[in-house]
């Protein structure tokens, strides 16, 4: 092979590694972002009072960008372990599409930009809450808890629970018991959701030294904790009806889906061996996503109908 050919192939390789706009979008964790946007929207619609549609759209966009910035900063910090886990190996940094420094700069610019824009254009309660959410996810969860304690996703889960509060604050300019209840629902939902995933992704976490509960305390204790958190979650998820946030449709949905959630959680506890155990955990993981989506979707529809009839 000639020197010219070698040089060309090195150039080709470099070109293939050049980041595209899509790689930067992947840094924002679009799937997580969609849940952030959806729950923030519910917080905005459920909040008392109203907001001009343009300002509402700006608030939602900035919450999405802030959530994306958290994702980029998380990928910057976790680049070393992401490359060694099947679930995260195809992220832009492990694949060499984006350098860690680029991801860090991108994340900082988006985080600062989203907080400042939300604060200046909407209000500073929402801006401050968004800043706290990003800081909590990056410093408390990613840098401090994730690699140190099996309680990582219990406490760190708060970061994912803040968006409805930020949305609520964007409209009302305050924090209230209703927005705290929305926060608590996601907060209590996170442990059974992630531990169900961790039960069948246990080896991945073990290999990279992330002390997820199944790795540290074993699958039996994880199954017990899943049931405990599910028992706390289901009544809490019904509570919006009793504080006037949800209507009768919400009551029926939260009770019916809560019963299914508990059924699947007890299944995870009961079936502990073989492929069936993995299947039970996968079922709970999949259903937990639908459960949260359905609860917030019903709240959203009820609030829209309620406000339209007022």
């Amino acid at each position: 092979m000639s020197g010219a050919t070698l040089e060309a192939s090195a150039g080709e390789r470099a070109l293939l590694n050049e980041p595209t706009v899509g790689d930067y979008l992947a840094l924002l964790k679009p799937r997580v972002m969609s849940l952030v946007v959806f729950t923030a929207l519910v917080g905005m619609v459920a909040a008392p009072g109203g907001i001009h549609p343009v300002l509402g759209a700006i608030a939602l966009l900035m919450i999405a960008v802030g959530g994306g910035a958290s994702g980029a900063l998380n990928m910057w910090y976790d680049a070393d372990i992401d490359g060694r886990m099947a679930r995260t190996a195809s992220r832009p940094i492990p694949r060499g599409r984006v350098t860690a420094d680029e991801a860090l700069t991108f994340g900082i610019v988006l985080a600062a930009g989203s907080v400042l824009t939300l604060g200046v254009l909407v209000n500073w309660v929402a801006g401050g809450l968004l800043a706290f959410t990003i800081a909590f996810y990056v410093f408390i969860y990613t840098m401090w808890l994730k690699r140190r304690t099996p309680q990582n996703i219990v406490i760190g889960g708060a970061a994912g629970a803040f968006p409805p509060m930020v949305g609520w604050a964007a409209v009302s300019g305050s924090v209230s018991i209703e927005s705290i209840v929305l926060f608590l629902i996601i907060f209590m939902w996170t442990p059974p959701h992630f531990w169900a995933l961790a039960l069948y992704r246990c080896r991945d976490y073990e290999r990279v030294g992330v002390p997820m509960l199944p790795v540290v305390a074993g699958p039996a204790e994880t199954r017990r904790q899943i049931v405990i958190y599910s028992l706390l979650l289901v009544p809490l998820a019904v509570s919006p009806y009793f504080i006037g946030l949800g209507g009768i449709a919400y009551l029926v949905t939260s009770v019916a889906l809560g019963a299914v959630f508990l059924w699947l959680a007890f299944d995870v506890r009961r079936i502990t061996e073989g492929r069936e155990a993995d299947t039970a955990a996968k079922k709970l993981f999949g259903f937990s996503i639908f459960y949260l989506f359905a609860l917030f979707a019903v709240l959203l529809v009820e609030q829209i109908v309620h406000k339209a009839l007022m």
Partner: protein
Amino acid sequence: MSGKEGSKPMSRMPAGADSEEARRRQRLRSLAIALALGFLVVLFYAATIVRLGGNVMNRPL
């Protein structure tokens, strides 16, 4: 190990890669940044008009 330790050099372009394709991708990135900045200008303009509301027209001499 933190993300910092996983950092790579900023430039991944050997001299031979300075081709038309590389310039095209750089142009695309520049365009994306320009569009984002332009979008921010529109965003701030629209929000200012919305916040001022009817007072936009209130300009007593």
